[in-house]
């Protein structure tokens, strides 16, 4: 029996989009749910986000985007994560993402997309059930 390691989450805002109400609410909500959360702040390039994920050794990357650039930026982030050997990290997304884009997102390695109005509880539960946990001590 060992100490259970808390889930580490990177909440990130890729691209030039400055709408971070949702991202900030998620940061607080995940912290309240007992997770360790790092927030990148707005206007991050895919490279910066992946670097932060590696440095912070996170289990989950939560991407929030409302600018419509998800089709370009999300796949780039998952590709870079893979290149850095972080392909077991759970990557999820949220924001204004049309339903018809979701299959392409999933194909690119985004595990789940949470649209507007999703209850926080749903996201917390999803992370708890799906985040990589092999690092338990």
């Amino acid at each position, binding site marked *: 029996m060992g100490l259970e390691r808390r889930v580490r989450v990177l909440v990130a805002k890729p*691209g030039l989009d400055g709408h971070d*109400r949702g991202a900030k609410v998620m940061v*607080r909500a995940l912290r309240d749910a007992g997770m360790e959360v790092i*927030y990148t702040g*707005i*206007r991050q390039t895919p490279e910066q986000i992946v670097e932060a994920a590696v440095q912070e050794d996170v289990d989950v990357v939560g991407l929030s985007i409302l600018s*419509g650039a998800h089709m*370009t930026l999300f796949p780039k982030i998952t590709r870079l994560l893979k290149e850095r050997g972080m392909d077991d990290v759970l990557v999820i997304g949220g924001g204004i993402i049309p339903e018809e884009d979701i299959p392409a997102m999933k194909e690119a390695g985004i595990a789940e997309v949470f649209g507007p109005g999703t*209850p926080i509880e749903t996201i917390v539960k999803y992370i708890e059930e799906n985040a990589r946990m092999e690092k338990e001590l």
Partner: protein
Amino acid sequence: MFDKRELTSIVKEKERWERETLEKTLARFPERLPEFTTVSGMPIERLYTPMDVEDLDYVRDLGFPGEFPFTRGVYATVHRGRLWTMRQYAGFGTAEESNQRYKYLLEQGQTGLSVAFDLPTQIGYDSDHSIASGEVGRVGVPVSSLRDMEILFDGIPLDKVSTSMTINSTAPQVLAMYFALAEKQGVPLNKVDGTVQNDILKEYVARGTYIYPPEASMRLAVDIIEYCYKNAPRFNTISVSGYHIREAGATAVQELAFTLANGIAYVEAAMERGLPIDDFAPRVSFFFACHNDLFEEVAKFRAARRMWAKIVRERFGARDPRSMLLRYHVQTAGCTLTAQQPYNNIVRVTIQALAAVLGGAQSLHTNSFDEALALPSETAVITALRTQQIIAHESGVTNTVDPLGGSFFMESLTNKIEEEAMEYIQKIDAMGGAMAAIQRGFYQKQIADSAYKYQKEVESKEKTVVGVNEFITEAKVPIKLLKVDPEAEEKQVERLRRVRAERDGKKVKEVLKKLRRAAEGRGNLMPFMLEAVKAYATTGEISDTLREVFGEYKAMTIV
């Protein structure tokens, strides 16, 4: 407003009513909630009576529309004289596509234009910059050079339309392009009508399209204010914006307080430059959100007018009544739109637009019902415009000025909002003003707290959001969304390369060098901006030139 004897008898009567009528009702039918509040959490009483406005002095506190303190309206006849400008925020894909949308909206009876620029344009990157990849034409139209501006307004004479431009850190070059285009169309600048947002302070707090450190940004903002009042006197030189602050989660009071505090900072900066208050203040305008709580919003607008008039007159010593007018644009609150059951949004927008009109707005954008899903489709944007037209021409609410004025509830709420917003402004003053408060994260923290509180109330169902946490249906409504042309980015980049190839490269180098030297000095940069854009120097090149001189703002993140 009431004499003492009358009040005493009302107090007595109220006590009697509570005893004889109210208590019985409450005993049989308890009220639905232990406490009733506005959307922003302000407590609301069961009933308002003359006692709640006991100290109200009609002439001093309300007065007459078009006269100090302008509580009832900035003009004598408000919407009986002229309806508000119906102005839908639009722009996407390429300049060609956006031009088509503008012409369509004008044909449909829209009375002003409002340009949405894409994020690279707003943050000073050309469409072919690597950081712009995937963002070109997504949330607005890309404008990398004067060529794009020419196409955007092709067939739209600039002396016949008023144009609002949501542009902040790159406002100098984009405005210069608009003015250069006016010149090309043969329209003198004193006939050009419109608004440039030019409100950088709220970008550090809520919207995020900053480039330079605050001091340099404030200098550019004042450059525009100064250049316009001297050369384009009909142009609103700034639109001090609460909208984005509210959308980020602020309450109505916080929105009002932070906006007016920012307004104070701009006035102070312009006065420090030596501009006389009555020369530039008449062209300072405002921009607010309108949320779902109709009475709270109307009270906010009324309080805003009274507060600004007092601030400009008493704090800054303005004498010209035009300096004291809080003229404002409203956008219905995007954050209230739901992705679930999207047609419900039409009703939300109607309530919000109604509040804006009852509040006395000068200009209005109504959101489209599909905007929690994508940029608005043509059908959705027309429904939004028709909503305004129905309010204007069918509802009858425009028949009289400030129709809610004099309501015990409305006057009491207006006073309360003013009081609480004033407390915030005093707190901000004590910190050293808006810029200092922002740099220490005061606004950001307040807004984040309010946003989280609101979300928790929705999660716990203390707040009902129809279709989201109550009255949920699984059935999906088919809805056709706008799809931005996937080739738009490529077309735009192609055009930009052509512009670069065809222009006089030597001339561009020269104008950018002049701009750089001017930026290193202290003079107004607008004349250099105009020279640069006329030589087809690009948005990105101009921004890069200034980045070299001013440096870039290092973001501060407060959760």
